[in-house]
């Protein structure tokens, strides 16, 4: 499904209009801080403070393939090996870790900050440096925990390929409560 970033963003909190408005701001701030806005397509938030319970359902804009060495920068064949000139240093540590594991430490050298030289005849082009999607899921879980009111210590997070459902409450999470929240979210989607 093709979606724009945050094309739908609804926050509902019965009896707490101010709280709902503020939570909208807060969620935007936190998602922006963690750089997640572009990866979320739709977001529905339901907060019932009289219970108290907090539920979020979101659709993820998926389709990020794992990052390979080829995509990290310019890969060139040199005399006696390969050389990678890294453009974005964000995943440098992961790159070195993968190369060390694959070629052994003695065959990987880093003569400059953004340069890695590998003494081997086999090309590292297709080695997977990091799974961006897995990193994104971790960040997303972190964001959800930050967003939920702090006292709501009983939490449950259901993540599927293209969506996530997060619920947090002060009391024990019962299957009935989870089902009720899901139906609330469904009615928000259909509204």
């Amino acid at each position: 499904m093709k979606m724009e970033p945050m094309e739908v963003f609804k926050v509902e909190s019965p009896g707490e209009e101010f709280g709902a408005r503020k939570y909208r701001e807060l969620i935007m701030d936190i998602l922006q801080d963690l750089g997640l806005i572009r990866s979320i397509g739709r977001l529905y938030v339901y907060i019932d403070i009289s219970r108290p319970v907090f539920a979020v359902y979101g659709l993820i804009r998926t389709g990020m393939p794992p990052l390979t060495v080829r995509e990290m920068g310019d890969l060139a064949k040199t005399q006696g090996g390969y050389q990678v000139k890294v453009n974005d240093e964000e995943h440098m540590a992961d790159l070195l870790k993968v190369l060390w594991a694959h070629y052994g430490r003695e065959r990987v050298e880093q003569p400059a900050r953004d340069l890695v030289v590998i003494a081997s005849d086999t090309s590292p082009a297709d080695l997977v440096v990091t799974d961006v999607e897995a990193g994104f899921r971790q960040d997303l879980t972190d964001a959800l925990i930050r967003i939920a009111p702090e006292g709501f210590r009983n939490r449950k997070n259901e993540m599927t390929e293209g969506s996530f459902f997060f619920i947090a409450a002060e009391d024990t999470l019962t299957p009935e409560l989870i089902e009720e929240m899901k139906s609330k979210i469904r009615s928000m989607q259909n509204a």
Partner: protein
Amino acid sequence: MLEPVMFTGGVYKHDLVMELVADLGGYILQKNVTQSEVILLMLVPTEDMPAIKALISELRGELVRAPLAGTEVAVVTPTLAIHHLPHTACDIAEYLRRNGAKTNMIGLARGVGREIAQINEYESGLINEHDAAIFIFGNFAECIRKKEDLYRNISVPVVVTGGPEISKSEMPYAFEYVPSIGRIAHRSKKANELGTLDKIVDSIGRALDRTRAEIAKDPLTTSPPRVMDAVREQIPEIEYSFSPLPIALNLNGVRVKLPYDEYKDAVKAVRFDEGVTVGEIARVMPSKMKDYILVRILPMSETGFVF
């Protein structure tokens, strides 16, 4: 009458300001040196303000009124987690400090939630050692009403902040309620946010004025800055305290940041020019904060004199 003011200027010749304040019978409450700049919190006799102003303009320094100088305010959040810090709590604390207050950030151990929020005896005791407290709550009106339990037993004035508009009559135990802060995830920088911070400062100012008025009905035997000066002169070890403010002032006493067991007798024996000792005019007891010494000056009704 002493005027609370804050001097900001270069380190060069700032000792002239300190000397003049001492000569005029004022007090230096706090001195912060940050690289080449120095910030002095002082109490200056109102009638001598022109002399101080003249010297400071000659030194190209800045002098502003610091209405909260000489007081200690507790900034209380439900916990010290990322949900409450750094933005709201630090912004409020910073704003209070700029107005001269000494702020202590207190995160409760179990202050979170609507049903499960609690405060224990130690925490309320610690907050009660301050001159006023500010409780920072979130965005839901229902939660803010429920969390009254946290400050019901606090004996100092409590200013409550939160997001939504709530009538003060719904919060009988709060001194005042300041809305439109709540939980935020960005630094306060918009005009309306800064305006709210100003309102908090004003509210704390009113709370302290009420305490001052109560104290004035039965005046303290001596003023806290005087005790501070005497302790500083007669217990030289205080200079070696690692705390940035070795003697913190309250409206009704001081907190001496030295170990209680070792120094309680030394503090009690501090003698004023009039011949009385601190032990005779004040209660010296262990503070709830670390193992510091808390000095509470007795009112005139108990000692029978004022000096």
